[in-house]
């Protein structure tokens, strides 16, 4: 018998390749999307060749089945990326932000390499969900073949993908890239795991009886048994995992805050206030706590917090959980609180080791003054300063008093901001090659 799934698998990949062929006809706003597409195409072709080489007469059913599964799994992992690349060509996107954002990404992720020698590549796109999103490809990501190493893919909400006021949120997404590249998960896992153990030992008496059962075979001290007992282990693992994820998201907030300052707080409020629908995601601290942490970090970093900022946010309800999961999240929430200061310091240290400069108040004021005259500021140093000035103007209802500027304020302000970002990008191109 010939194995029909071998043919099916090859056909599926060939059809995906046809689609890649169509995507190649798109008008690409910059070369990085094209390079990624070419890499995916080469990879899919290699999958077809691999399956072509499988001779049903020479290989067992198990081998053929396994190869097909692997190929289809790899295909499935790249389908969303193809969609992402397609959306990166849509003219709704603000392509002007590409060069300045690539510059920041390179300075952040490869601080020891000259920005023009860096291999970091960026694809800016949009997602049909109201949340910024990112894929990071780096050697540490073992689930997928390493064909897109060094690529960062950032997607803004589709119908707001040309809204420059949301750009500061890309700082959070870049935080995820730093988290992965610097392997911060390993460092934090050790600290969090110890903190969870400590918490369990201290609060042992409060635990439900069914969890406190200690196996008779355990010849360990009572103290060790509390955290190694088979019933406690899953709780400990889940708590560690939740606390770790919350710490990652919070660290990313602090990276965004460090890069964009007050503008990050403002775009964060734009996204989350008053409250997103649905229940809380356990990967994040609840909104009020998250905001309080941002305000605390802003204080340490020396950024101004908008007046009455925290009152914009509301907590969402926790999802309905089994008792044991509720216990895990309670421990995670408590342990996470102990990680906040460490994450604030870590983000500050990492940024201080790069050439990414914090927004300067004087420069922001100069840009703001130029915006008052409805013109870009010629000598900008950073996208962050432009965005802070834009947010300052956006928050001021009577920023322009004269018609037609006043009537069309938001639209003109966004256009002006994007033009200023483009001028910054032109200056960066003229200073050296950006490829």
């Amino acid at each position, binding site marked *: 018998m010939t194995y029909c799934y071998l043919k099916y698998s090859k056909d599926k990949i060939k059809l995906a390749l046809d689609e890649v062929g169509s995507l190649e006809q798109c*008008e*690409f*706003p*910059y070369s990085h999307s094209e390079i990624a597409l070419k890499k995916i195409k080469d990879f899919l072709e290699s999958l077809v060749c691999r399956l072509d080489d499988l001779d049903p007469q020479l290989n067992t059913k198990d081998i053929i089945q396994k190869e097909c599964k692997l190929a289809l799994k790899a295909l499935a992992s790249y389908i969303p990326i193809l969609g992402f690349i397609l959306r990166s060509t849509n*003219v709704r996107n603000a*392509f*002007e932000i590409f060069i300045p954002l690539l510059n920041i990404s390179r300075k952040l992720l490869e601080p020891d390499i000259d920005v023009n020698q860096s291999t970091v590549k960026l694809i800016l796109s949009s997602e049909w969900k109201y949340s910024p999103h990112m894929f990071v490809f780096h050697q540490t990501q073992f689930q997928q073949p390493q064909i897109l190493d060094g690529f960062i893919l950032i997607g803004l909400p589709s119908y707001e993908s040309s809204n420059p006021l949301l750009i500061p949120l890309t700082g959070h997404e870049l935080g995820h890239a730093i988290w992965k590249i610097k392997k911060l998960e390993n460092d934090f896992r050790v600290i969090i795991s110890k903190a969870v153990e400590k918490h369990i030992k201290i609060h042992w008496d409060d635990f439900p009886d069914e969890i406190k059962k200690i196996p008779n075979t355990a010849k360990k001290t009572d103290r060790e048994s509390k955290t190694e007992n088979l019933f406690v282990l899953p709780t400990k693992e889940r708590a560690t995992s939740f606390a770790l994820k919350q710490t990652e998201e919070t660290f990313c907030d602090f990276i965004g805050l460090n890069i964009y300052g007050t503008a990050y707080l403002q775009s964060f409020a734009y996204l989350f206030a008053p409250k997103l629908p649905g229940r809380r995601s356990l990967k994040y601290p609840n909104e009020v706590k998250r905001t309080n942490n941002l305000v605390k970090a802003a204080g340490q970093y020396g950024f101004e917090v908008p007046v009455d900022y925290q009152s914009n946010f509301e907590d969402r309800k926790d999802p309905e959980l089994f008792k044991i999961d509720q216990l895990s999240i309670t421990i995670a929430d408590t342990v996470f609180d102990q990680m906040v200061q460490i994450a604030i310091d870590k983000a500050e240290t990492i940024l201080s080791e790069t050439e990414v400069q914090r927004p300067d108040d004087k420069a922001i004021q*100069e840009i703001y*003054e*130029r915006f008052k*005259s*409805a*013109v*870009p500021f*010629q000598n900008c140093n950073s996208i962050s300063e432009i965005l802070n000035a834009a947010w300052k103007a956006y928050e001021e209802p009577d920023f322009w008093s*004269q*018609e*037609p*500027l006043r009537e*069309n304020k938001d*639209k*003109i302000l966004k*256009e*002006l901001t*994007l*033009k200023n970002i*483009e*001028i910054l990008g*032109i*200056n960066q*191109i003229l200073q050296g090659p950006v490829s």
Partner: protein
Amino acid sequence: MILKSEHIATLLKEGDKIGEDDPLVISPQPDLEKLHASGSASVDLRLGTWFSSLRQARLSHLTMDEERLRPQLTKSHYVRYGSEYYLHPNSFVLGITLEWIRLPTTMAAYVIGKSSLGRRGLIIATATGVHPGYTGCITLELTNVGEIPIAIKPGMRICQLFFHQVWKSAKNVDCSQFIGRRKPELGNIKSDTIAQKLGDFPIGSDFHR
């Protein structure tokens, strides 16, 4: 009165100062030293990255009395720096200046093509006027009247701006619908009551007998 390059360079330098009340601005700014020394009466502007073309396959014709042109009838294109847009013979596309311009209330300007491009068949604009107080990029009407396709590149010098002093300073700024834009737009054609009444007049009515 048309301004000479020395005067324009001086005004641009003054307009670059923070807090200037009614500045002349071209951003990115041209090289003021070169402009000052050029002895010309205009400033060259460059081509931007955004283009807008009509979706010909979806249009039977355009009427000139539409109050609002449906946006789906035009298509935006982004051409990155280093790439080219091929303008074929007899084809037409809207482009935009790379520079953001702001005119003081004491000045107006005209967008004129460059003779070197015109001699190759590229027509830039049909005497586009820029009114006092205008701020934004300037939409260009690009046509190839030659016989072979022309490659145009974002960043290239595409047109020139002649500045005129306005006789009496106007307090009001330009209220053009195109103000504050970075992408080319067709815009709407303003309703014209006289043309409307003339157009509504019944043909073959008693009036003609």
